[in-house]
């Protein structure tokens, strides 16, 4: 019988076209479905063009195409990438198929390259076909803008290159097909998730931890799906046309994809094939997986259980640590069960579990006792600027939430002094946070209960810009007592002096107005909580004319500059109650501004802001102006918190005996010039 060999050449060890086309034929539903979904966009264009009632323009088509790239194109690419990788590398997860493939006369590099390229083709070939179809539709409908269409193709191909390479990379680490999408999904956002978990862990144990800016940025870059989602958008060009905003970053990730593909090959070359069916196929990844799962479980379960039982647990580190250890052990043994494929892991795994517990406990002790000097204030020479944010001060008005960007030497030094004082007193401050002593009161000053130690709680944020370009952030929960103010170098005293710097008073109130240069745009002015002793009710009064409003604004700015108005109080104490009126002055600024929108077109829109200033008895110019304008007189009085308390608590004639200052009595003219609105 005659016989003939089909080919006399030796096998190509690096590539096999039979396998490539076999993959294309076997898995046609994958690239077919991807192509059909992508085709919907140009089909919509076609139908719009054919519809007599609709009009398809080149601008609209370009915007729709680029708008499709993110997030829809991004999501499709991420999903079909993992499906493609699961298909072409599925043979690795079954010992029978492993035998078939790896007994073939081709090197592992050849199998990988052929599989990788065939999977990539599942994504790129439909993109190329849809590109050509769209090109045709746009050309026929006379709406062709080639550059947006090319950007669509480039971005989509780059997405495919990155996500498919990443999926292939993941495919080589797992031994079970069900584990692949799980790993892929988790790894896509792992860095971001880990950063959140570590931050949460630090918040639990490290006093003062707020964020880790450098790590946060790195975590975002290592979470490609999140970065690409955020960066993707459509921007009109200055000379016309449209641009996909995330194109540069997409190209960068495409290169990262190629690097991952190369790394994948290295992993494949050493992958033990007998691990088909295991959750993790590569030996050195197993402990990483096990302790990674244990750590994530420790933090998430620990925090969850701590929140659940918070009311039953004492403060401090130990309850939290105990719950974290419980969570960590659950995660550790769960990971062991997955790796060993048995529930009998307790006897073999106890050593690792013990090591985990010791590591968690040691970490918690180091963090909780600040053994690494976490709370040390940075050196003055390292600080370029600082944002101090968070202290809540009284009266409750537009300057209550203190937030300042400070660059002057003197200001930075003041903030550093505060930071050093917090670091110095941190044990005492932590103790105060964990247990509230019975002899301090978190309520307001009561004139009939003098001498009580009042307390206030607040969070103070430090955000330093350092000379090396990095940032350092801290956040401290503070429980401050009125008695702290007795010591000039206490945290409360230093904070008090920072928030009461008269040079910054106007800025605190009028930051938004100054930014818009809108001091000449005062549209409304009113005073609320003006007391009428006859009716014993509170009224709002409005300032009628523009000249009166501007006169009032000048008086306010004069008082702020002189430090007679805007005094900030950390505590609701006697000084605050005696000085601050119930009345607030509301100044509303309004103007029409012109801005360029995201499509490069100038648009007008209304801008307004209202500044609320708690009036104080020391604000002589402002009070004089109010009297002059007839807004306050004998029948329209400003009442301090102390006076209000005494009146409402039944002290005879307390509020009625309020003495108007000399100047105000004189300033009242024929009658109120302002509109008076009774309060309900």
């Amino acid at each position, binding site marked *: 019988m005659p016989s003939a060999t089909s080919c006399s050449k030796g096998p190509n060890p690096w590539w096999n076209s039979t396998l490539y086309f076999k993959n294309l034929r076997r898995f046609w539903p994958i690239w077919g479905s991807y192509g059909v979904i992508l085709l919907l966009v140009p089909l919509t264009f076609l139908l719009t063009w054919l519809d007599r009632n609709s009009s398809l323009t080149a601008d609209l088509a370009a915007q729709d195409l680029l708008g499709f790239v993110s997030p829809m194109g991004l999501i499709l690419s991420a999903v079909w990438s993992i499906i493609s990788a699961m298909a072409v590398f599925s043979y690795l997860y079954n010992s029978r198929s492993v*035998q078939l493939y790896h007994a073939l*006369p081709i090197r592992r590099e050849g199998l990988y390259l052929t599989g990788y390229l065939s999977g990539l083709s599942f994504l790129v070939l439909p993109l190329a076909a849809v590109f050509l179809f769209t090109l045709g539709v746009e050309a026929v409908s006379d709406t062709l803008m080639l550059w947006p269409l090319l950007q669509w193709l480039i971005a989509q191909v780059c997405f495919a290159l990155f996500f498919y390479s990443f999926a292939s990379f993941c495919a080589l680490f797992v031994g079970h097909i069900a584990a692949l999408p799980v790993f892929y999904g988790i790894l896509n956002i792992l860095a971001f998730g880990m950063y959140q978990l570590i931050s949460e862990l630090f918040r639990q144990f490290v006093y003062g931890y707020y964020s880790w800016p450098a790590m946060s940025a790195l975590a975002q870059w290592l979470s490609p799906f999140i970065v690409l989602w955020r960066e993707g958008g459509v921007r009109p060009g200055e000379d016309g046309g449209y641009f996909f905003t995330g194109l540069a970053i997409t190209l960068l990730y495409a290169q990262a994809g190629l690097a991952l593909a190369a790394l994948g090959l290295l992993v494949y070359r050493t992958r033990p094939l*007998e691990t088909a069916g295991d959750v993790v196929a590569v030996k050195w990844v197993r402990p990483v997986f096990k302790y990674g799962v244990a750590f994530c479980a420790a933090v998430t379960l620990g925090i969850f259980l701590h929140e659940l039982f918070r009311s039953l647990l004492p403060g401090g580190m130990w309850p939290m640590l105990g719950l974290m250890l419980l969570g960590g052990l659950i995660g550790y043994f769960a990971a062991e069960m997955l790796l060993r494929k048995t529930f009998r892991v307790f006897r073999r795994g106890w050593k690792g579990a013990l090591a985990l517990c010791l590591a968690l406990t040691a970490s918690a002790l180091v963090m909780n006792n600040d053994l690494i000097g976490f709370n040390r204030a940075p050196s003055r020479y390292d600080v370029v600027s600082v944002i101090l944010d968070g202290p809540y001060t009284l009266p409750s008005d537009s300057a209550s939430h203190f937030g300042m960007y400070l660059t002057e030497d003197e200001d930075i030094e003041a903030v550093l002094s505060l930071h050093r004082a917090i670091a110095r007193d941190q044990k005492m401050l932590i103790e105060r946070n964990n247990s509230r002593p019975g002899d301090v009161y978190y309520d307001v000053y009561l004139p009939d209960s003098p001498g009580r130690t009042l307390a206030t709680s607040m969070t103070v944020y430090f955000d330093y810009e350092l000379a090396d370009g990095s940032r350092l952030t801290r956040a401290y929960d503070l429980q401050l007592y009125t008695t702290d103010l007795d010591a000039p170098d206490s945290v409360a005293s230093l904070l008090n002096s920072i928030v009461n710097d008269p040079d910054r008073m106007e800025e605190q109130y009028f930051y938004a107005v100054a930014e818009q240069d809108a001091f000449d745009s005062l549209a409304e002015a009113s005073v609320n909580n003006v007391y009428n002793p006859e009716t014993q009710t509170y009224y709002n009064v409005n300032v009628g004319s523009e000249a009166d409003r501007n006169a009032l604004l000048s008086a306010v700015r004069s008082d702020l500059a002189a430090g007679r108005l805007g005094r900030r109080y950390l505590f609701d104490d006697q000084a605050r109650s005696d000085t601050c009126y119930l009345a607030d002055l509301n100044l509303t600024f309004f103007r029409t501004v012109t801005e360029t929108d995201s499509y490069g077109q100038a648009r007008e829109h209304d801008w307004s802001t209202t500044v609320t200033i708690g009036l104080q008895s020391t604000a002589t110019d402002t009070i004089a102006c109010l009297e002059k304008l007839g807004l306050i007189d004998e029948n329209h009085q400003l009442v301090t918190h102390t006076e209000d308390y005494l009146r409402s608590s039944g002290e005879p004639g307390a509020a009625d005996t309020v003495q108007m200052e000399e100047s105000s009595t004189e300033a009242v003219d024929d009658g109120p010039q302002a509109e008076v609105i009774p309060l309900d």
Partner: protein
Amino acid sequence: MIEVKELVKTFDGFRALDGLNMTVPTASIYGLVGPNGAGKSTLLRHITGVWRQDSGTVLADGAPIYENPAVKARIASIPDDLYYFLSASTADMAAFYRGFYPRFDMGRYEALRDVFSGIDEKRAIRRLSKGMQKQAAFWLALCCRPDILVLDEPVDGLDPVMRRQVWSLLMGDVAEHGTTVLVSSHNLRELEDVCDHVGILSRGRVLIERSLSDLQENLVKMQVVFQEKELPKLPNDMEVLHVSHVGRIHTLIVRGNATDVTNRLAVYAPILMEALPLTLEEIFIYELGGEDYAVRDIVL
């Protein structure tokens, strides 16, 4: 020739292959036998280049097999657990193998269609019966025109006629083309008919490796009736692997050739003495008896 030298393979600390040495002569049919878990399939996966050894070498005609496509193109294998693509027919798989094996012989494929006439070559292989799937595997493997054919439990599931047919084809290839066949099986009676070399594996090592005739000459079964009812004390240097008796007839399995053992027992002036050849199954059982793998009399 296949040469395996000091082959070691460990799974999670368990040494499945423990410094294994083996030589399969060219153009021979080599039977690989051993108890369950001895490492037969593990060894075959190294010889087909699927698994990478921890240490040691696996060579075909002096060249390493692992990651060597030129050598693997000359090796075809039929594993005990067959795998084909989900909806692939025999014809599809032939086309697939044709793309990998340069010597894939379509002429032979056509010729063997008559031998495997029961197979619908357009039908998905997974829809065929187990025996038919095995036939398809032989059909495809033989068309690769391999120099080395590695078979793991190859005729399991085949009917007697097809077994004979398949062995006939294999022996034809050995005779005509010098094909080397390495076959692992528990069917010792069948191996005895076809193998010219046998290796016995136990605990990851090759215990004995000889030609079948050498193996049979090295062990002898003696049936002896002595003048006394009891078995006399035999010389210490006579290696008796097993003793049993029915009435006065003693059956001894003794290491050595039949003539020597007969002469040595003759000094006891037995009433009756006969030397019988051992089957491969008996050799397997009694050799492994020394490895603590004897058939145990268990009363339930």
